[in-house]
């Protein structure tokens, strides 16, 4: 176990050192929130500054969970790093465990930075427990994309993993209303995505303190689907 934790620590360190993570998962959502978030309108029954804070925190958390790991797993399988690890006493599940924990750890700064901007610069106000619950909900919902990252990493080459991530993530982010609030047909489609529903969980918590069963079922459904895909990709990659 201590060997696995050592690998995990090093994996987290590598993510922090890597510029791509800082840009996509922290700097970009924080900057967008600073630029766009100050409008004094309403959306989804809450102030826009709260709406956009949740949107950018969701975006950053999901991007952090997905982008790093998917490409790293694909690259490290190709480079022979995973083979190299198989020649050590590290248990077979150690590698994926380190990657999953790393993903879960790296979503936290995305949420904290955007929430920090909301609380201290954009004057979003809500009771303390709602801040905590919102952060936890986002963190748990981002597990969906942690699984997707494993699924993509074990299914694609380093060259195709990046486009695969973009093809899945950006439509989900945009149709999920994370970049700007949607209406009409687009919103009707978007409602089926975990991005939309994870975000809606947050706005519902702020506006009424009650969340809908639909949101939970949709996020959970995608979570189960991606987890199954991850297990399937992992297994078929191991058999090669």
């Amino acid at each position, binding site marked *: 176990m201590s*060997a696995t934790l050592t690998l995990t620590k*090093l994996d987290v360190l*590598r993510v922090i050192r890597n510029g791509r993570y800082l840009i996509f998962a922290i700097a970009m959502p924080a900057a967008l929130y600073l630029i766009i978030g100050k409008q004094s309108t309403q959306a989804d029954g809450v102030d826009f500054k709260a709406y956009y804070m949740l949107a950018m925190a969701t975006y950053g958390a999901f991007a952090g969970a997905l982008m790093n790991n998917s490409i790293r797993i694909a690259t*490290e399988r190709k480079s022979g*790093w*995973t*083979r190299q690890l198989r*020649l050590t*006493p590290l248990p077979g599940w150690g590698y994926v465990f380190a990657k999953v924990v790393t993903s879960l750890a790296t979503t936290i700064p995305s949420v904290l930075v955007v929430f920090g901007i909301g609380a201290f610069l954009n004057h979003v106000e809500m009771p303390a427990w709602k801040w905590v619950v919102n952060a936890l909900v986002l963190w748990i919902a981002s597990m969906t994309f942690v699984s997707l990252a494993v699924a993509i990493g074990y299914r694609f080459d380093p060259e195709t993993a990046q486009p695969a991530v973009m093809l899945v993530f950006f439509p989900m982010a945009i149709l999920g209303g994370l970049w700007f609030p949607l209406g009409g047909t687009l919103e009707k489609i978007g409602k089926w995505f975990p991005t939309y529903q994870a975000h809606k969980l947050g706005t519902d918590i702020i506006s009424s303190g009650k969340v809908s069963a639909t949101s939970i079922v949709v996020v959970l459904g995608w979570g189960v689907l991606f987890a199954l895909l991850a297990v399937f990709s992992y297994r078929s990659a191991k058999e090669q």
Partner: protein
Amino acid sequence: MPRDTRSPDGAVVEFENVSKTFHSPKGPVHAVNHLTMALQPGQTIAFLGPNGAGKSTSLNMLLGLSRPDSGRVALFGGTAADAIKHGMVGAMLQSGGLMSDVTVREQVELWAKLHPRPIPVTEALKRANIADLGDRRVDKLSGGQQQRVQFAMAIIGDSPLIVLDEPTTGMDVENRQAFWATMRERAYEGKTVLFATHYLEEADQFAERVIVINKGRLLADGSAAEIKASAGAKRLSFRLPGVPDAVLHRLPNLVHVERQADIVRLQSSDSDATLYALLDAGYRPAEIEIQALGLEQAFLAITAEDNSVGDTDTATLEAAR
């Protein structure tokens, strides 16, 4: 102690009738074909063969990275997974990757933590001749430098079996010498060192035992000197117009015959006996030259012989041994 769990006859590595076939569009490729061998503790063994001979496939099966289609592979009398779990194996693969975004020291430290009985990181860096590279990023190193990082990883676990696949490819002469000096020390410590190589001089200088494989089969197994002898230790050439082929082929200890106009070139495992027999038969060859074969020529002779006799017949070589 896992260190003492060896099979009854004490072999560190055992291959028993191991076969592995790959399926390509052109039909099945018998990468490893009924290979049987046993490696004893404390030996330094070179694994020699031309490209595509089945070296890497054999090493992959040895390390449990792939499974044989048939036959049995054992490490320390058990499975590769077990031996690896107990830190009994330090390996350096051609296809082995390194981490990105970490320093050399971090990379090697991770390896030390993964193994149960590591030597100090500084010591491993020193032995691999990369003490000065500790703070450099692994992904910014040259190929030869990365090779040495992998080498440090292979020895840091202080494992009783060290497996190296083409370890010195990409190293310059100085580092190659440093590498072999370190490897010699490991051998003195009683470790078993198995290395695949295509540098024949390395096999000649550093291995107590050389295993030659070709087309997935064991062709020769012995000390470098024995291999040379088995290949026809001497090359014998002379001018002898008009000698019938049948006479040449009847000569004793003959491995290989080649004629070019009046010049005859022979390989013989006992050149004296071969030459005396020719003289006894009443021939008087001119311009006699006798030359010892190096391991490289021996190796080429053995594999060329094997390639020319096709898939089933190794009688010539067997007879010569």
